[in-house]
């Protein structure tokens, strides 16, 4: 594999300088997760995860199934508790689900008895916002996701892509500090998935929300992620954390470009490095190859407070 040596201005990607705790709105400190009996010898699902996210990043968490990426999401959302470590959001420890962390699930998970508009209003209603204001706000978010015309429809009348748009609008309306997306497009057909990927990128640009997007699809991570985390399984841990050079200078990545193909190849190799049978990497050197384009220098050291 040819390594393109030039650094293509990865610094323009909004990534906080490492080590500056104040810059990070979301911080994971030494997070470990073990299932079963709380003994230190139980196998770890996640081991010593340290991570710091700025308030406006688009991060893709990439990894094979079973690497603990869904557990990571459940931890940040507050659905499960870490065995060790803590999660800090906007300066306060986050240990139970609340409106600070919004979640978009793999299956849209809308309330089937509510119309699309009422679904989007749900968080606002819980926050005690007056009816008229909440109507107006929900309408604005529906327009943002391009679903204004379906406001009075019910979830079972929507296509898969429309459901996910409604779910995204519902999460945005609750105004979270960070939005977690758990493989939200994996159940959609290929064409819808592509249009949703473009769409979620636009939503991110317009709203400036911090999005942590979980996927097992290398292409999706490269297309969407301004920063990409790669997880290896057993125990789940972050092995790569880098600014996506394809998004440098604000240009949109082209699937057909050589850079895309090279990064893709490299990432697939790095995923295979973590597979239980090392045989997948036959004919290659055992050590991690250098990352193309950006080179290792654009990688971030995992955050250690």
């Amino acid at each position, binding site marked *: 594999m040819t390594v393109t040596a030039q650094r293509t201005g990865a610094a323009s990607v909004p990534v906080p300088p490492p080590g500056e705790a104040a810059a990070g709105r979301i911080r994971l400190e030494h997070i470990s997760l073990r299932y079963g009996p709380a003994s230190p010898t139980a196998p770890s699902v996640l081991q010593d995860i340290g991570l710091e996210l700025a308030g406006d990043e688009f991060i893709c968490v990439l990894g094979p199934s079973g690497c603990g990426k869904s557990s990571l999401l459940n931890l940040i*959302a*507050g*659905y499960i508790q870490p065995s060790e470590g803590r999660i800090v959001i906007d300066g306060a420890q986050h240990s*139970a*689900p*609340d*409106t600070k*962390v*919004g*979640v978009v*699930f793999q*299956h849209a*998970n809308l*309330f*089937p*008895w509510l119309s699309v508009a009422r679904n989007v209003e*749900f*968080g606002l*209603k*819980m*926050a005690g916002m007056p009816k008229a204001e909440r109507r107006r706000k929900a309408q604005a978010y529906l327009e943002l996701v391009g679903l204004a015309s379906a406001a009075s429809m*019910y*979830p*079972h009348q929507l*296509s898969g*892509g*429309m459901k996910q748009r409604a779910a995204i609008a*519902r*999460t945005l309306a*609750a105004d*979270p500090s960070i939005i977690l997306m758990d493989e939200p497009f994996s159940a959609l057909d290929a064409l*819808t998935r592509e249009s949703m990927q473009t769409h979620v990128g636009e939503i991110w640009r317009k709203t400036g929300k911090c999005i942590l997007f979980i996927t097992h699809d290398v292409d999706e991570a490269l297309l969407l992620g301004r920063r990409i985390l790669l997880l290896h399984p057993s125990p789940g841990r972050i092995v790569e954390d880098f600014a996506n050079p394809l998004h440098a200078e604000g240009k949109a990545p082209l699937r057909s470009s050589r850079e895309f193909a090279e990064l893709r190849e490299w990432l697939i190799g790095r995923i295979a490095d973590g597979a239980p049978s090392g045989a997948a990497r036959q004919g290659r050197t055992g050590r991690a190859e250098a990352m193309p384009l950006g080179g290792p220098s654009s990688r971030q050291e995992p955050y250690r407070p």
Partner: protein
Amino acid sequence: MAIAPSAANKREARRSRAESRLLPAAVSAGSVLAVLLLWWLSGRFGWVSPLFLPPPADVWAAFADIAQHGYKDSSLAAHVGASLRRILIAIALAAVTAVPLGILCGRNRWLRAVFDPFVEFYRPLPPLAYYSLLVLWFGIADESKIVLLFLSGFSPLFIAAVHSSRQVPAERINGARSLGARGWRLYAYVILPSCLPDVLTGLRTAVGVTYSTLVAAEMVAAISGMGWMVLDASKYLRSDIIYAGIILMGIIAIIIDSSLRLLIRKASPWARG
């Protein structure tokens, strides 16, 4: 986005749907008519003693008579009304107690452990077995009948509520919590609506059980009600009135059940299979 089926396809689908519903209905109507015809023939040719099976004309005449002049000091409407009133009060009481309690028990296994043994114990008991006790406790007036009907309707509703609240997807509850729903609001705005389709099905079962307990409830010291009317008529071997009463009870049950079915379909269109 979903591709809209063409108008022709839609029409085709509607026609075949209509056919698939109409045909069995026509067969049912035919078989009912055949039985009515047999009934009429047996009366016409005296196959069976009129004491066992009075001819349709007699049953109709008995019905017309009680409809016009009432039965034993009360009009037919009063008898039907008395029965339906008992059922309605009993079901309303069961709904406001069994549904909230069942939903809470479904969400909390300790609470479930407290209430489960009692519900499981009395549920299979035949209502008549403990009815005399209820009469001792609540007297021979309407109260004991309503309590009996309440108990018979309570367990199907309770079980439906427990089951449905345990089935609420964890992801739906997690999602709601991430949108700021907590405490009673989580129950009122997420868990209760999630349970509604199953609870309404439980309500249908409960109404059915209650209705069938009604005759038993009206056997002791009653002076009104459809069940009492039929039982009283049997003392005088008035089989025409018995048949008229039974057919009336059957028709009312079908009306109640189909309106409940309609309500279920209206209330939870997403749950349709």
